[in-house]
């Protein structure tokens, strides 16, 4: 296999709390591509995103995760992040005492590589970047100085994840239900962000339960995770069928490998 710029998930088996959730998932995500991943509740979509990002609560039993030719399967989450994989959480946690600006400065410094003090911003353009990202995500710049997610509504937390993706710029994005809790305006913001990400050559794994997001951005491919495996792959017709029939037609389908 020659080296291409992709995020490869190869034959991934993973467990949560002792229960097997992923049973051999194969996905290849190219840079500059938007791959939507759908599936019924409990199918393992969030588990998959968490497994790729290296969450301690997901135990990978078998398989590999390769980013731009480099095997990251055994790496701790922070190194996966620095290798260019950014997870936008489905339920971002509250972090009392830590401001968004502090976390972004630290993460930014880490990516720069050399810094005297992890928490001090040396790049003056960073603050304007943070402000404009918040604005683009539909949030007031006050959110920069508020304790992360403390008292934020679901929609606000999602917008904050989006702003972080704009500030941190990563090669691959795992977006876990970025549209939940958002209104029409929010949906548009998510849509236009994904369009920009695609144009910038970022690979986007877009996890969503509903098809309404596709009115704001057209994915290149749509795959369905069912029973712990990817069983269907195609274009918008897949989404249309899910909207009409739900997921019941997937019983008994064989596992598929999703590739471009």
């Amino acid at each position, binding site marked *: 296999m020659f080296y291409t710029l992709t995020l490869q998930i190869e034959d991934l088996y993973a467990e949560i709390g002792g229960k097997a959730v992923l049973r051999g998932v194969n996905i290849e995500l190219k840079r500059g591509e938007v791959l939507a991943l759908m599936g019924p509740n409990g199918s393992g979509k969030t588990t998959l995103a968490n497994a790729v990002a*290296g*969450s301690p609560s997901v135990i990978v039993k078998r398989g590999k995760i390769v980013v731009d030719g480099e095997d990251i399967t055994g790496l701790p989450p*922070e190194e996966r992040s620095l290798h260019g994989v950014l997870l936008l959480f489905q339920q971002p*946690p509250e972090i*009392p005492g830590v401001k968004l600006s*502090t976390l972004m400065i630290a993460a930014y410094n*880490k990516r720069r590589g050399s810094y005297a003090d992890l928490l001090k911003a040396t790049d003056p353009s960073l603050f304007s970047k943070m402000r404009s990202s918040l604005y683009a995500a539909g949030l007031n710049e006050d959110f920069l100085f508020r304790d992360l997610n403390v008292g934020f509504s679901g929609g606000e937390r999602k917008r904050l994840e989006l702003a972080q993706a704009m500030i*941190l710029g990563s090669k691959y994005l795992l977006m876990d239900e970025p549209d939940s809790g958002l209104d029409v305006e929010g949906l548009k913001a998510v849509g236009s962000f994904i369009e920009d990400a695609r144009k910038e050559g970022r690979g986007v794994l877009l996890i969503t339960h509903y098809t309404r997001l596709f009115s704001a951005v057209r994915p290149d491919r749509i795959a369905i995770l069912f029973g712990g495996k990817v069983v269907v792959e195609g274009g918008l017709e897949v989404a249309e069928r899910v909207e009409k029939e739900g997921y019941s037609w997937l019983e008994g389908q064989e596992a598929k490998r999703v590739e471009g």
Partner: protein
Amino acid sequence: MLEGSADIKDVPYQRVRDSPTLKFYSSWEKYESGMGEPVGIANPIINERTLRGAELVELRPDGSYRGSLEEESPSADLFSVTEGRILAKHLMSLKSSLKLKVNDGENRRVEIIYLAPEAGSSHHHIRIDVGRGSSAEIALISSARSSAGVPITTMEAFVGEGSKLRIWRVSVFEREGLPISWLRVSGRGASEVEVRNVLLGGGASFASDEISLIGSKSAAKMNSFLMAMEGEKVDHLTNISNNSPGSNASIFVNGFNFGGVLVHRGKLKVTREALESENKLSSIFYRIGSGSKTYSVPSLEVEGDFAVSASHETSVSPLPEIVLFYMKSRGLNERESLEVMVRSSLSKVLEGMDGDAIEKVISEILLRAPSGISP
């Protein structure tokens, strides 16, 4: 001179009245055995100014001092020798009281550096009178590398109507230090009292802050950052007695325990006079590494249905896994994630101070912290 008495031995360390299974949490015996004539001056850890442009006062272990405060014969209004043995011994060892008077309409900033003895105990008492419509910012900085001494302070402050008082207490001691500090503040109508603490280490450091609010529309805010490494103990008490209508009382304590002992007792007392007041106490303690002991006792005493709100919450836990994962997913490793959390908490307390030197000390200590975060 405070009158002495032969019956000081009859004064108990502390009157314990909580329950049959509870004894006191403070290390009274350790303090008592460390008390005696002060010897030498211990090397401070914080050597830079933390309130630039402020008046500078230096308190020395032998009871003398340098600076712009008035000195007068020892007297204490808000402290009584009957409360406890260590306090009684301290009050009776005072050679003088220092007085800081802020006249009506005046603003004063004072940085008080307390040098600890290498062994034995030292005693200082400071009385602060803030007039009407005035403001005072006071930093009490005490730090020492390897000191087995017991530096003790009592501070009492009276805040006049419409005035503001902000006090920082920064106490950074390495493993053996035994600093004790009592602060009592009485705030009158429309006054704002803020007490901020950075309490680090010491074999057993004790810091007690009590605010009493009277008159209307006053505000009392306490914010404390606590940290104890292995073999260290931080013993902190934060009480607010709210008798002020339309007031706001809040206590926030954040502690990081790296294998030492952290004790926090905090009481919010809301009396019948505190009509339409809001009262909240919140304390969060994280345990990192192994061998930590954390004791959290938030208390609430509410009389009548006059307050709008009165609540408290506390949690003692390891660093939440999901929070750690979230920060790691942004590229920070475990140590860096911890640094973000510790320094974010610290920066809230240091706001308004030139706290770089303090931040640096804490960062250095963090580097030496146990490497495994998850036990």
